[in-house]
């Protein structure tokens, strides 16, 4: 009886994450796809066809027949969308790279720190989350604007003689993304470095590596899982980022999140914005699937 109970319990435990994915990812995703196949209408909700239980199966089939991929074709016809996707991916990639450049040394330093102060350092990395994200991004406006803190500092130090224009450029977006997403990069890298056996770098040095060579041949390759996880955690949300480009970016900054927001709120075109979101998801998911497939293959080759 106890055994049966625990088997049942095991199943229930597995159901929870699946149910979560089903209700909060898969079903909403199908709704988005379904809207993307509809056509916009001045109605409530603002698209057609609308399913109605009263119309029965015949009505359901009629509705399905009305679905079209016109919205997707529209996305390919207007260069705006391709540009927005391209520049989103580019901005996200550059920001991810910059985040990695800053996060790796931070994580490395934390992993090398004495055990006693590690929890404190970890706390310091997480601490900014205690303040509202929006407030922190607004704070960057105050720092980066022409008469802001940063320019004043440089002017006072005599590094420059007139203010730099940073706010409302792509650089402001990079700074905003790097700043906001840094903990997501630091934590996975830290966790992969922290569990590494210190004798591995000693062994590398013993076999003739200078400390720098030992880092590149042993430490860095072994921290790759953390680097990859961190890059994904930064890159994926950065591609669809809306708040940071909206607040820090300029009017000419084209990012897909902003485009989507415009379609949804300004144009009230739910079907096109749903199509934009679906394509965004594909752009992100397909490379990740390829990557995971390649990793699984590499893993099984070792066996």
């Amino acid at each position, binding site marked *: 009886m106890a055994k049966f109970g625990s088997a049942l319990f095991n199943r229930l435990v597995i159901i929870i994450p699946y149910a979560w994915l089903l209700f909060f990812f898969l079903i909403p995703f199908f709704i988005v796809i379904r809207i993307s196949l509809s056509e916009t209408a001045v109605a409530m909700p603002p698209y057609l066809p609308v399913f109605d239980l009263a119309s029965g199966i015949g009505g359901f089939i009629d509705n399905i027949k009305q679905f079209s991929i016109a919205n997707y074709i529209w996305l390919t016809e207007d260069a705006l969308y391709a540009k927005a996707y391209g520049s989103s991916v580019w901005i996200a990639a550059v920001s991810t790279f910059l985040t990695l450049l800053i996060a790796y040394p931070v994580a490395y330093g934390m992993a090398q720190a004495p055990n006693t102060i590690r929890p404190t350092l970890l706390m310091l990395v997480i601490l900014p989350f205690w303040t509202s994200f929006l407030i922190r991004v607004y704070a960057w406006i105050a720092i980066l604007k022409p008469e802001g803190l940063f320019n004043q500092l440089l002017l006072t130090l005599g590094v420059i003689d007139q203010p730099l224009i940073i706010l409302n450029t792509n650089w402001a977006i990079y700074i905003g993304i790097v700043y906001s997403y840094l903990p997501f990069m630091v934590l996975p890298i830290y966790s992969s470095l922290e569990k590494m056996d210190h004798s591995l770098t000693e062994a590398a040095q*013993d076999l003739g*590596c200078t400390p720098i060579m030992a880092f590149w041949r042993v430490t860095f*390759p*072994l921290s790759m899982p953390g680097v990859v996880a961190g890059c994904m955690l930064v890159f994926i949300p950065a591609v669809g980022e809306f708040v940071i480009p909206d607040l820090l970016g300029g009017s000419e900054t084209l990012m897909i999140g902003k485009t989507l927001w415009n379609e949804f709120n300004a144009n009230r075109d739910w079907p096109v914005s749903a199509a934009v979101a679906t394509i965004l998801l594909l752009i992100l998911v397909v490379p990740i699937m390829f990557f995971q497939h390649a990793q699984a293959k590499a893993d099984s080759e070792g066996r």
Partner: protein
Amino acid sequence: MKSLGSIRRSFSPWADPNSVPFIAVKNVTKKFGDFVAVDDLSLNIYPREFFALLGASGCGKSTLLRMLAGFEQPTSGEIILDGQSLAGIPPYRRPVNMMFQSYALFPHMTVESNIAFGLKQDGMPKADIAKRVDQMLKLVKLDKFAKRKPHQLSGGQRQRVALARSLAKRPKVLLLDEPLGALDKKLREETQFELMDLQQELGLTFVVVTHDQEEAMTMADRIAVMAHGKVVQVATPPEIYEAPNSRFVADFIGDVNIFDGTVSSAGNGTVEIATQSGFTVRVASTEPLTAGAKAGFAVRPEKIRVGRDRPACAPLNAAEGEIWDIGYLGDMTVFHVKLKDGKVIKASSLNAVRAMEDPLGYDQEVWISFDENAGVVLKD
């Protein structure tokens, strides 16, 4: 390969005043903050020697090994290898390699690339690397596992990879930190002999750190017993066992019975000690002692006879007692004999006969006795 016996018997460079040490540790002290890990330690290790640093954890043996490898710098003193001071030379420029206690195999590399790691780092041509790796794999009998990753190997195989990797660069000295610590007993015993054979075959100098006295006794040409950052005794395994120079060494290596007492006479190659257990010990010893001095007498369990009859030598080197405990181990039996004064001593006898007639039993009145050369005098 020549049989080990003949080489071993004639190998004793430490006894020759003309031989030059390969590694000379000179008055080395290592402090971590206030803690003195290695305390003014001096040692000579000779070429082709299998040298063991033996001691309990925290005695400084690993710190000394790490100083030889270059991971720690001596606070004071100097280490000389093959005539050259190692001061300030980083680990990656020392002609020594280390086998780590955890093996420290690179988990992201195959067995092959692990072994080739140091060679690649030295810029050896690819064909030569392949040849050397092949040779090392054969040496440790892992040729079939070249393409495996460390996590796909058993503990014993990993140990061999670590060994092959540390030998691949043909170091002048191989440092081994608890090389067999992670293996189970049976494998450990086999591997001990393999290591000895390998060391002879390659003609290298091995310095091994261990807390396992049996391991040190089996493998080493000489053992340095360490305690509190100092070397207590350096000697061959038989010397360490049969002629420990202190209570610490006598007690640390193997089982021992120590009788405390007062020297009643000394001279002419014998010392007599009146023990606190009420009997007198006469030992063959040239220790310069004077009557009335405090001294101890150490004798190993297997050198004590236990019998029902009063031995001929009594009252010298003999005492009465009763059997307190019996431990039957198969190859031998260990008796705990309680003497008249309440002291319990250990005596062991080999079970050379399969079925002994009338074996000794619990609570039986017995005599213990030993020969004049069975034990050693320990000065206090």
